């Protein structure tokens, strides 16, 4: 481990990708993630990798589709409206089982909205903003250090499962600076890529990357294969941070920047004699359902806090399936739920019979 | 049976040229017919291939000069030409 460096979240994502062996980046500028492109533009030219600013997000995701077909580690990055434009390409990539990393530094919407942080793209990214039955692996870091670690991991997961992986951050995570400590060497696992379309060189029959299956039975078989894969991911890759939950009165569920606010709330509540637990899903898909099984009986119930009108809360409800009450608190428009507001709700919940 | 089935039909002329029609690939589009300078390609009305088309074939094979025009025009790679 090296020394701790002060770096911006967005730049750490870019640096982590380079360390993970990513030498191909295709993107289109959009606030609040532009620093990723700026960093990549400079570094890729220095090390002879490929940074290409596409003519649009639509083109960018399809360039990624092409480069991923060729078997290289490849990344793109955008923010909410840009991610909307990538939906067709994402659905194609999921169907064609192409490993790639997609960064979404969410801003507030809908529409052109604003550029401040938000978590209102949860449904889009986690449930499938594109058409068809598919799943993305969705990682939700909450600190700059974690941006680094999960970005490296994202490339490994993408290769391991031949699946697109999304890093879902918010504007503050991308913009903030914190200390980050880089490993000397990254644990790179490269998947077998003999499916890649690199030119067959006369050594094998042709490889094909495709997402169309005209025969319904063939397509259904492919769908089932995808579902099997998703099951395996669920079994093996579900992650959450659990803080203070044993013996808690109330458990708050939050991810990303909001989870950090909740960590402050835990301390505030302690002073009031309330024990607040935090479940912070790190994988939003697969959602860490099992953790909820363990704490389903928390006496005063669950509170989900999001920078949205209430999206992840549906997964919390599905995970608990009626076993406990689930309250919700959300802020929108680029506002972040405050320590005080969360504390107030927690207090009310603790007071209730 | 009303129609014959399609097959691989080779037309041979020892001195000149040889054309082979893979009849089951043929869609009876007739593009080969017009370009034949010798006008010896015809549709075989009495044959129905696997796909349900009347395939093309050659009559008066001895007139063939092996120019391969028919083959170059054929959109379905039905025809092989030897000379």
């Amino acid at each position, binding site marked *: 481990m090296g020394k701790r460096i002060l770096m911006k979240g967005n730049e750490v994502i870019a640096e982590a990708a380079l360390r993970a062996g990513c030498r191909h980046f295709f993107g289109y500028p959009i606030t609040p993630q532009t620093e990723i492109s700026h960093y990549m533009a400079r570094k890729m030219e220095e090390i002879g990798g490929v940074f290409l600013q596409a003519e649009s997000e639509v083109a960018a995701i399809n360039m990624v589709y092409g480069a991923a077909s060729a078997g290289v580690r490849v990344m793109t990055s955008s923010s909410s409206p840009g991610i909307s434009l990538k939906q067709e390409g994402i659905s194609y990539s999921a169907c064609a089982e192409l490993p790639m990393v997609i960064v979404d530094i969410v801003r507030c919407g809908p529409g052109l909205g604003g550029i401040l942080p938000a978590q209102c793209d949860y449904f889009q990214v986690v449930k499938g903003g594109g058409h068809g039955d598919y799943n993305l692996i969705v990682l939700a870091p909450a600190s700059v250090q974690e941006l680094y670690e999960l970005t490296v991991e994202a490339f490994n997961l993408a290769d391991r499962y031949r699946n697109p992986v999304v890093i879902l951050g918010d504007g503050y995570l991308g913009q903030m600076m914190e*200390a980050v400590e880089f490993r000397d060497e990254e644990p790179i696992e490269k998947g077998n890529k003999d499916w890649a379309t690199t030119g067959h060189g006369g050594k094998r029959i042709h490889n094909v990357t495709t997402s169309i299956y005209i025969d319904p039975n063939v397509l259904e078989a492919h769908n089932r294969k995808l579902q099997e894969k998703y099951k395996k991911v669920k079994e093996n890759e579900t992650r959450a941070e659990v803080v203070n939950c044993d013996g808690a009165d109330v458990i708050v569920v939050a991810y990303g920047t909001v989870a950090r606010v909740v*960590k402050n709330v835990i301390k505030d509540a302690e002073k009031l004699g309330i024990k607040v637990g935090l479940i912070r899903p790190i994988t939003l898909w697969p959602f860490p359902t099992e953790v909820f099984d363990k704490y389903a009986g928390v006496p005063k119930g669950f509170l989900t806090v999001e920078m949205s009108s209430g999206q992840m809360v549906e997964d919390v409800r599905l995970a608990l399936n009626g076993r406990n009450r689930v309250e919700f608190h959300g802020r929108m428009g680029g506002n*972040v739920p405050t320590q005080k507001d969360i504390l107030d709700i927690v207090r009310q919940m603790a007071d209730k019979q | 049976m009303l129609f014959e089935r399609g097959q691989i039909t080779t037309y041979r002329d020892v001195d000149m040229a040889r054309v082979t029609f893979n009849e089951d690939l043929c869609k009876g589009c007739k593009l080969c017919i017009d370009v034949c300078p010798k006008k010896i390609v015809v549709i075989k009305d009495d044959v129905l291939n696997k796909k349900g088309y009347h395939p093309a074939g050659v009559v008066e094979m001895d007139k063939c000069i092996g120019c391969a025009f028919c083959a170059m025009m054929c959109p379905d790679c039905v025809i092989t030409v030897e000379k």
Partner: protein
Amino acid sequence: MQQIIISGFGGQGILSMGRLLAAGGLHEGHNVSWLPSYGPEMRGGTANCHVIISNEEIGSPIISCPNALIVMNQPSLDKFENMVEENGIIVMDSALVPIKPKRKDLRSFSLPATEKAYEMGHPAFAGVILLGKFIAETGIISSKSFEEALRTVLSPSKHNLIPDEMKALEFGMSY
């Protein structure tokens, strides 16, 4: 734990001031976070950043109760004054913040930073002067660490300015 909001007009170097503090804190081995306001309003609008320097794990990087405020224009004081913790500290530029804080439970300092910076020939030094005062009052980092921070934050082409920046810092520290 120091929770500092620095605020002013876009273009005054507000964000860099925060980075310098954070870098200084990191150099002293603390945990630090720096969170900028960002966006199109940067163009001629207001700018601010949140800096936390702490020995514990930093929860939220968003400061709802700063214990320090450094302001470089009037609207910023108006906006943030009431958020400051009791006994917190406010450092401000006397030329840019003519109307002083109303609260009496704070320690507030007004410096002619812009004036001095003009005098030094580097209008951009105003911020460093204010930081000097802040450092002197809180002792959050040493001036050594600040110099180190200058070295990591400034691009090498500007390292020649460091001695002058340190002079500005000292002016603030000893004001």
